[in-house]
């Protein structure tokens, strides 16, 4: 039996809009083996991002359990969850979500400010991460001075700089042109293949899903 990096068991999640309860996920079970590159696909409103948020520990399920990197995320308090995310999860967002007043270097350094690394060690980590994404020559550039593809690569460098156990990516190519999207997908594929990073990616894009080893479909809150 393979070692699972993510184990989702009987998870349900609903939101309240005024007095109306809107079910988003129902009795979801999902296991992601370590080192896997999983793509979650499905139409808008199917619950893909909600499931990703639950796995990443930025939201809590109504029922069920989620175990990631041998930690039962659902049992952690808010502050424990914050520490856990910093240690285990690397995030890549559709709209990059870089801090506009910080340079590429400073954006990538952000997660390391929460660690006990020295300034020199942080510097080494940041330069290595930016080197992996091919942006060593753009360290001092601000986000607005970079193209969309370059900004997403900075976001990927930020996601991997603390050497997380799991990378979660929410529509990482959703805001990019075809060429940039291909670059990003190639980079994610490389992170999975060369650096053995486990990746869970939400996407609409079939080309993106084709890069993954495993594709699961969500529809109306259920895995199909």
């Amino acid at each position, binding site marked *: 039996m393979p070692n699972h990096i993510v184990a989702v068991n009987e998870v349900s999640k609903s939101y309240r809009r005024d007095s109306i309860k809107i079910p988003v996920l129902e009795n979801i079970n999902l296991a992601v083996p370590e080192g896997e590159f999983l793509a979650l696909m499905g139409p808008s409103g199917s619950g893909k991002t909600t499931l990703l948020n639950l796995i990443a520990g930025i939201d809590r399920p109504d029922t069920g359990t989620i175990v990631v990197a041998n930690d039962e995320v659902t049992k952690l308090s808010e502050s424990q969850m914050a520490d856990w995310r910093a240690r285990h999860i690397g995030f890549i967002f559709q709209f990059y979500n870089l801090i506009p007043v910080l340079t590429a270097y400073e954006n990538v*350094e952000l997660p390391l400010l929460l660690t006990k690394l020295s300034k020199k060690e942080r510097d080494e980590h940041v330069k290595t991460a930016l080197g992996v994404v091919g942006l060593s020559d753009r360290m001092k550039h601000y986000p607005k001075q970079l193209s969309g593809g370059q900004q997403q690569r900075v976001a990927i460098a930020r996601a991997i700089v603390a050497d997380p156990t799991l990378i979660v990516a929410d529509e990482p190519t959703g805001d990019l042109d075809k060429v940039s999207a291909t670059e990003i997908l190639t980079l994610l594929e490389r992170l999975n293949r060369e650096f053995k990073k486990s990746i869970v990616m939400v996407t609409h894009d079939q080309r993106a899903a084709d890069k993954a080893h495993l594709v699961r479909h969500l529809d109306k809150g259920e895995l199909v």
Partner: protein
Amino acid sequence: MKILKLIFKNTLRHPLRTILTFLGIAIVTFAFGFIRTAISAWYAGVEASAQNRMVVLNATSLMFPLPLSYRDKIAQIPGVQSVGTANWFGAYYKDPKDFFANFAVDDKYLAMYSEFVTPPEQLAAYKQERNACIIGRKLANRFGWKLGDAVQLTGTIFYGQWDFVVRGIYDGAHATTDETAFLFHWDYINERMKQESPELADYPGWFVIQIADDVNPVAIGEIIDGNFKNSPAETKTETERAFNLSFIAMAGTIMTAMEVISIVVVLIILLVLANTMAMTARERMSEYAVLKTLGFRPLHLVGLISGESLLIALGGFVVGLGALFFIFKNFSVVITKLSNGFFGIFNLTDNTIALTFASALMVGIVAAIFPTWRAVRMRIADGLHRVA
């Protein structure tokens, strides 16, 4: 890269908004400090009151004088060391708008006010000349008067033209000492009154007494007032502090209004900064969500938002305070002139600086409370959703 650097960079993210808010706080700091200083100036007479000086005045009103014969009787009372005579002269120089305090006083009165520091040779020259006067440094600067200058005042109580020669210019021994007074010989008006209006002669406005340190002022006051009970001019004896406070009470409503204005001014800028911080935080909710996602804790967000708010508030405070120092150092004479001598003492006190700083600090902290609360309570998923 540290959190402080992020705070600093965030502050400069919308330069125009930050500069306008910053200037607003600087102006309010200036206004608040100015108003508080004006209030302090008004109370300066009370602060400068001596513990061992008392004032004996007509029990009916300060408007009514006392017989000069009381002076010797008061001087006989055990515990009284000295009795000085004074009159409010109420004259003006050239234009009635050129108001300043002018008093006719005798030498004993002058000797009691050691905080009016006059060079000995000037004091000696003053004593030798009947129409000589001693003026405060600020008054001299205000009108450009120098030693030896002839000054003519127009009387409003003691009518007519009154000629004086400036023989002394005094400096205040303390920051709270009034340097705008005009003092001259009581005998000068008394002699002229004997000729022109005998009914006004030998009637000083009040007496100032100096008492021994070990004497109870209340007891002395009771003895003095008891001596003149049932006489045509009963007396009211009080400490100099109480006497000065009774003057201030006359303008109590104005002072209260000024205090209220100073508080309102601070509340207005609090709302302005709170609005700025609320806008700022609303625009950055997605960034706060990202920071939380990366593992930053609520305390980090508190530091980021309140740090920015405090940076703007305290930065504005420093600029406003600098402007206050500059204005008071270089334009205090102008202020005294513009206020027609109403504010003779215009010093930025430590208390005013501390109060202004505390106000800026309070504004910085309170303005950050609501946006910080929102950012801390925000669900990460909701914050990230704002981007899309």
